[in-house]
């Protein structure tokens, strides 16, 4: 998977396209979409935990962005603006799904324990740890996952996260602490916690 270009270089490429798109240039918006689609999809995937929902959320995010680009003031980077829209779309999507199916994991539902199968050699490998973290993130309750993804991976401020998820800033912080604690226990357990995890 290709890594995204550096923020500064990306901003320089996107800025003239954003200016043109704000003036109604449809081709410029399409180019913005092409350049940022994989990044936006990746965030949608991390928030939703599966490909189908991620595609729906990313598509909805670009439609909203297209309708709202004229009002985009350019205070933030275009990519940050897209992250916020994507987070908002994902929250709406999850809320609709929760109302229909009532299947959201509780915040304290136990994550599957994979400590026993861990290969110490593989664990030492950074790639393996990242893969394990990706799986653990996907298994977190969506309300916890959204906050930790937006804060610790995409570096959005608490205020923006709270706004886009429709929660208070305090609730966002509480969810972040819970999410970190659960991932920390799962990936980097303290000696006593490991024993407790096996006993469950």
């Amino acid at each position, binding site marked *: 998977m290709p890594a995204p270009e550096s923020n500064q270089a990306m901003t320089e490429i996107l800025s003239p396209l954003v200016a043109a798109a704000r003036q109604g240039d449809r081709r410029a918006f399409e180019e913005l979409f092409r350049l940022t*689609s994989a990044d936006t999809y990746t965030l949608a995937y991390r928030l939703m935990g599966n490909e189908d929902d991620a*595609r729906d959320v990313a598509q909805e995010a670009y439609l909203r962005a*297209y309708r709202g680009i004229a009002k985009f003031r350019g205070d933030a980077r275009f990519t940050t603006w897209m992250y916020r829209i994507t987070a908002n779309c994902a929250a709406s999507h999850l809320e609709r799904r929760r109302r229909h199916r009532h299947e959201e994991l509780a915040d304290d539902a136990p994550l599957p324990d994979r400590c026993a199968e861990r290969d110490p050699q593989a664990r030492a490998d950074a790639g393996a740890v990242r893969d394990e973290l990706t799986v653990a993130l996907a298994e977190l309750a969506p309300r916890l996952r959204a906050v930790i993804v937006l804060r610790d991976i995409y570096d959005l401020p608490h205020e923006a996260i709270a706004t886009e998820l429709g929660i208070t800033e305090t609730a966002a912080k509480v969810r972040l602490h819970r999410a970190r604690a659960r991932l920390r226990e799962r990936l980097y357990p303290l000696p006593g916690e490991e024993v407790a995890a096996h006993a469950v």
Partner: protein
Amino acid sequence: MRCEDLAEMVSATPEGVVIDDVRGRRHVETCLRCQAELARYRKLVRTLRSLRSEVFDPGPGFVADVLAALDDAGDRHLLRSLLSGHRVAYVGGLAVATAGAAGALVIARSRGRRVALAG
């Protein structure tokens, strides 16, 4: 502070993971368990940040699907603009016609008065 409260005091900044609270920092300095836990939080946040450089491929068809959706949205927008443009033209035409009729009436009346004075 209690060791169980450490998670709530951990903050991730661009410089790394820190403890917000002064009492918390003092506690960690003397508590081996919390030092070990803090080290694990640092690893966790580092690994989370490393995920930022990963980009997933949305798969075939995604770009075409979104462009088609944008086309639809663009067409609807164009249709709305045209309809609202027609509405503006219609109202404008009515206004012009009304103003013209009023002007003609005023001119006709003033001519009538002049004819009456001359007679």
